[in-house]
C-alpha cells in the first residue's frame, strides 16, 4: 500500500488535470483550484520540515564541533532573529490601532528585509555579471569551426546592442547597420534554435508526465 496509494493519487490527480483542461464546465473547471489548494496546504506544513532540518543540522554541527561551526552559529542566530522579530511585529500589529502587518514599512522585520536581505540578494545577483564574463571568455575561444561561428555571432550581437555598433556602420543604409544584424541573428537564427529545443522539451514533458501518471515512472517514490 505504501506505493499503491501514492500511485493512485498521482493517476487520479493527473487525469483530472487533463480532463479539466479540455472540459470547461463544473465540476471539472474547479479541479485545478481544489488540487492547488491541497498542494498549498501540504507544502505549508512541509516548510516546517525544512526549517527544522536546517536547525537540526546546524545544531548538530555546533554540538559535534565540526569545521565551519561559525556558519552554523550564524544560520541559527539569523533564523531565530528574523523569526522572533516577525512574530513580535505580527502580534504588535494585531493589537495596534490601526492594525498593521509585520511586513509594513517601519517595522523591524521590514528593516531587516530592506537593509540586510535585499543587499545580500542583490550582491549574489550582481556576481552573475562576472561569472558571465568568465564563462564567455572560455566559450568564445575560436578553437574550431563551431566555436568560431559562436564567437562571430556573439561579437555581432554584443556590438549591435550598443550605440557604437551603428556608429561604426553609419555609412551603410539603416537596414544594413550592425543593430539590424544583431536583430536578425536573435530573431531568425536564435529563435529557430530555441524553438527546436522548446518543441523537444514540450514532447519530453508530455512523455514524462504520461509515464508518471500511468505509474511507469515511479523512481520518485523511492524505487524502480
Amino acid at each position, binding site marked *: 500500500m505504501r506505493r499503491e496509494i501514492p500511485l493512485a493519487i498521482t493517476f487520479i490527480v493527473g487525469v483530472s488535470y487533463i480532463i479539466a*483542461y479540455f472540459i470547461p*464546465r463544473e465540476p471539472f*473547471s474547479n479541479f485545478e483550484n481544489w488540487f492547488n489548494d491541497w498542494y498549498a496546504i501540504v507544502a505549508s506544513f512541509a516548510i516546517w520540515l*525544512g526549517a527544522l*532540518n536546517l536547525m537540526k*543540522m546546524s545544531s548538530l554541527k555546533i554540538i559535534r564541533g565540526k569545521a565551519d561551526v561559525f556558519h552554523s552559529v550564524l544560520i541559527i542566530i539569523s533564523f531565530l532573529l528574523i523569526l522572533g522579530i516577525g512574530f513580535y511585529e505580527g502580534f504588535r500589529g494585531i493589537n495596534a490601532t490601526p492594525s498593521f502587518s509585520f511586513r509594513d514599512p517601519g517595522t523591524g522585520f521590514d528593516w531587516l528585509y530592506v537593509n540586510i536581505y535585499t543587499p545580500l540578494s542583490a550582491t549574489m545577483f550582481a556576481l552573475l555579471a562576472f561569472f558571465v564574463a568568465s564563462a564567455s571568455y572560455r566559450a568564445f575561444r575560436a578553437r574550431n569551426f563551431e566555436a568560431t561561428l559562436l564567437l562571430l555571432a556573439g561579437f555581432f550581437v554584443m556590438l549591435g546592442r550598443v550605440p557604437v555598433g551603428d556608429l561604426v556602420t553609419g555609412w551603410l543604409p539603416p537596414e544594413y547597420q550592425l543593430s539590424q544584424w544583431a536583430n536578425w541573428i536573435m530573431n531568425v537564427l536564435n529563435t529557430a534554435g530555441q524553438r527546436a529545443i522548446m518543441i523537444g522539451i514540450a514532447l*519530453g514533458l508530455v512523455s514524462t508526465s504520461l509515464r508518471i501518471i500511468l505509474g511507469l*515512472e515511479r523512481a520518485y517514490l*523511492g524505487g524502480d
Partner: protein
Amino acid sequence: MKGFTTIISLVFLMALPLFAQETPPDSALVGAAVDTLVPAESRPAPVGQLSAEDTPNDDGESITINWMVSPDDAAGKVAEYKVMRALAPEGPFEEVGDAGSGQTSYSDNRAERGVPYYYKIAALNYKKVDNQITWQVSSESAVIGPIMATAQWINMGRLNILIAILILNGSIIYFIWAAKGGRQFYIRKIAGIEEVENAVGRATEMGRSIYYVPGINDMDDVQTLASITILGKVAAIAAENDTRIDVPVSRSMVMVTAREVVKEAYSKVGRPDSFQEDQVRYLTDDQFGYAAAIDGLFLRERPATIFLIGSFYAESLIMAETGNSIGSIQIAGTAQPAQLPFFVAACDYTLIGEEMFAASAYLSREPKLLGSLKGQDLAKAVFLIAIFVGVILESFGIDVSNLFTAE
C-alpha cells in the same frame, strides 16, 4: 503684540479672496456652468450592429458583446463605451463594464449561468478637469437580448491540442505495449548520461564527495520529478562505489522525496547502513540564498563531481562557474532554454531539454521506459511533417496558422 495682531489681520484680509474662490458654487450655478460648457455637436452617434453571444468554450459565466464603433469615434467624440445590462428589455439597466474608444467588444464575466440578460451600449463623451467630469453627453444603442450564458462540454479552442496529445500519447502507449512484447529499441547515445558512471567513478578514485543539486523548483515541476528520478540512479551508482553523495535542496518537499529516493538507492545495492540523513539537507527557499550556500559548500568541500539537474534560473551560472573553478567534473541538465547556454559554457556535459527527461529511461534501460522514448520520437516526426507542410502552405499564401494556435 499690537504689531503682530495687525500683521495677522492683514494676512487674513489678503487671503479672503482665496477662500472666496474655493467656496463651492450652489447647484443651480453648477448646472448653468455645465450647460454652457458643453460644446455644440459633442453628442456622439450611437454604436451600430450590436450583438451578443454566449462566450464559447467556458463554464457558462460569460457573455460577449460586440458592436461597431460609433461613426464619431474616429473624430474623437467618444471617450468610452459603457456596457449596460438588465433582466428585462425595459430595464432597469445597470453598468457592468466599460471599453475604451475604438474598442468593439466586451466580455461580461459576471453573468449567471442560465439567466436571460438584455444589453445596450452607451457611447459617452465628456470632459475631465482635475479628474472631475465637467460635462457629459451620451447616446444609447438599441437593446439586444435575451442572451444566456451556457456551459460547454468541450473547449473547441483546444481541439488541436487534444489531437496532438492523442497522437503523442497514442504513439507512446503503442511503443510501451510493443516493448512489453519483447521488441528491442535502439536509443542513440547521450554523452551526458553515458558519462554518469565515469563521473561517479572519478569521485571514488579521488576520495571526494559528489554533489547533486536538483534545481530550485518544488515537486510540482516535472523537471524536479525528472531530476529526482535521475538522482535515484546516480545515488545507486554512488552507493555501489561507496562514495558519499550530498543533496542540498531548496524545498522541503524535495528534501523529503529526495531523502526517500537516496535511502532506497542505498538499500537496493545492499548498503542501507551507509546512508546518513544529513546527506539530503534543506538549505533555503530563497533563490540567491540557495546559490550562495551551494557556492560556499562547493568551495569548502571541493566535490569531485557535481550534478546540476533540474529547474534553474539566474543562479545556474553562479553555481556552474563556481563548480568549474574548483575543477569538478560537471553534468548539467535543464529544460529552461535560457539557462542552457550557461550550462554548455560552464559544464563538461549538458543534457539539453528532452535529454534530461530521457535520462531516467536511458539509465534504467527498462523496456517500457525505452518504448516511451521511441513513441516520443515518432510523435516528433509527425509534428515535424506538420510543421513542414504548414511552412509550405503558408509560403503559398494559404493561412493555416489557426490550426496551430490554441486558446
